[in-house]
């Protein structure tokens, strides 16, 4: 609340001398005079959260200048990238967006640059292409890996041998190539980290898609899932049902198997330092934390992993005027999903615009909807509507709104395609 107090005092201060004049002037004209400097919002990260935050701030108040900083000139969606691994998509082009239309349609300045630092006190972002000042900053950097928790893991070389493919793009293509090169009869290992991680049902959808591919093309091969969690994290009943129906004997699910060490030369992973598992292809998804820049900027909380935020505004509780959305933030009951990031971005944009205009903020209302494919034609979904429990100051699901599909569904697979089309269109236009 310090921030509101500051703005408020500023308002009072400005009014003190010219109080009557300034505020009487309100009746006909807002006090933000023509001579006032342009108000600036900077957004870091052009993914599911950042694109939407930038767009909705501009939609809600076109007088605010918005700069979106992203290191790549395009974005590849993690949702649906498992379908590429399974062979249902020929390439990643349906999952790839560019920023030109978004920039042109909404007057967003898109800068392709690497962010190197955030000066919270000075309200500026340092990048490979210079310094950008902001009044409010949105940080939406996705995830980084806690590779230090896996012995023998080298950040540069290990993923080239044991791809994580948990950031879509070259890693996804590498994993697909490895699957294509697999000798029939050899096994694929998927290592799932402890929750919370990006996209809770994602690893299990991936297992389904890989099993589908193996069933068609690699007789005798199977998927071994080493799950650090005590049980399937999301949509458990539906995944079990789908595996039994389509891939009986091809998915070997092993709970409570936390990979603690890797050996890329022998293509093995070690569980808790004792049990060794070999795979011809090893999809090692390391444990996760907030994106790198969130750590550099001191936005990460006591857990050293994720960013605590005000659940109503997504403003950091550690640095004022900086908002953190998407996978990096601690958003209570909202899962770390693309749809959550989209929804959080709109809540954040709405708060930013209200706060920058000295207006009352609106209570947050968010949604998550995410689909997982079990086979070429069947998908399942999980949904939730989210609000802040004001007594506990935490985001909770509205009772009744959270649930999964009753069964594997062909209709949901059709809806899922439109989900992708709509959410990517929203981000890119």
């Amino acid at each position, binding site marked *: 609340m310090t921030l509101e107090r500051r703005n408020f005092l500023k308002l009072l201060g400005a009014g003190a001398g010219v109080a009557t004049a300034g505020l009487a002037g309100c009746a006909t004209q807002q006090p933000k005079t023509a001579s006032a400097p342009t108000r600036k919002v900077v957004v870091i990260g052009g993914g599911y959260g950042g694109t939407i935050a930038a767009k909705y701030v501009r939609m809600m108040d076109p007088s605010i200048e918005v700069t979106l900083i992203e290191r790549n000139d395009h974005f590849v969606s993690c949702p649906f990238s498992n379908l590429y691994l399974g062979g249902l998509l020929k390439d990643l082009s349906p999952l790839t967006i560019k920023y030109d239309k978004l920039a042109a349609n909404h007057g967003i300045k898109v800068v392709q640059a690497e962010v190197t630092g955030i000066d919270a006190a000075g309200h500026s972002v340092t990048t490979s292409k210079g310094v950008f000042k902001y009044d409010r900053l949105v940080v939406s950097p996705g995830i980084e890996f806690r590779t230090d928790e896996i012995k023998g893991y080298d950040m540069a070389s290990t993923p080239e041998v044991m791809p994580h493919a948990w950031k879509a793009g070259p890693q996804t293509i590498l994993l697909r190539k490895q699957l294509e090169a697999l000798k029939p009869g050899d096994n694929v290992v998927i290592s799932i980290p402890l929750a919370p991680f990006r996209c809770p049902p994602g690893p299990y959808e991936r297992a389904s898609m890989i099993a589908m591919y193996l069933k068609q093309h690699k007789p005798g091969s199977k998927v071994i899932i080493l799950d650090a969690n005590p049980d399937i994290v999301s949509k458990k009943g539906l995944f079990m049902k789908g595996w039994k129906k389509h891939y009986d004997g091809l998915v070997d699910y092993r709970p409570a198997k936390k990979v603690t060490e890797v050996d890329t030369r022998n293509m093995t992973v070690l569980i808790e330092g004792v049990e060794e598992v070999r795979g011809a292809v090893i999809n090692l998804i390391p444990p996760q934390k907030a994106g790198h820049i969130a750590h550099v900027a001191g936005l990460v909380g006591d857990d050293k992993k994720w960013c605590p935020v005000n659940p109503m505004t997504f403003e950091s509780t550690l640095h004022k005027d900086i908002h953190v959305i998407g996978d990096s933030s601690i958003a209570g009951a909202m899962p770390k999903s693309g749809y959550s990031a989209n929804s959080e971005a709109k809540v954040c944009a709405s708060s930013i615009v209200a706060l920058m205009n000295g207006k009352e*903020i609106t209570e947050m209302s968010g949604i998550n909807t995410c689909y997982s494919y079990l086979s070429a034609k069947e998908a399942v979904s999980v*949904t939730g509507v989210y609000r802040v429990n004001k007594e506990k100051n935490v985001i909770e699901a509205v009772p009744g709104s959270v649930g999964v599909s009753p069964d594997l569904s062909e209709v949901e697979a059709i809806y899922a395609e439109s989900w992708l*089309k709509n959410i990517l269109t929203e981000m890119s236009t």
Partner: protein
Amino acid sequence: MTMKWRGWALTTGVLAISAMAQAAPPTAAMLSNACAGCHGTNGGSAGPSMPSLAGQSKESIVDAMTKFKSGARPASVMGRLAKGYSDAEIAAMGEFFSKQKIHVTNQSLDPAKVSRGASLQEANCSRCHIDDGKEGKDDTPVMASQWLTYLQMQMADYLTGHRKMPEKMKEKVDPMSKEDLDALLHFYASVK
């Protein structure tokens, strides 16, 4: 709102500061923007199986959401999501989307079916699907420029009995061939 708050803040001083910790109940925009991930920005859908909500009538959105919530209308995700909202919130969302400009879709349609549909609709459907489906009587949904795939999926649900047809619609639909029905849907999808 700003003005009112500013005036009030000035006179009440410190009280106003703590009042800022409060937030107003979710606005129609706050509620509705969350839907756009699936239904498109402001309800203009880019996905053929997902209906555009932009320009849809408030009555028809309220009717659909109420039936999703009670389970009276078959659904996948909507049956669950609708339970997340009060009746007043559903009305607010209906109002929000009804105020948006109709989303004009660009979809490839069979011109022969479109013209056949055009001649059928006048005599059969126009009493409820008013002005070429640009408006609807009472809670009849706006059909103009809706995605063909979505319309076909709904018609399939009606024909299998999965979704209950309104009586007046049933009277008209029952005697029609599947080809005629498909032509009608082509027509409505084509209206700009």
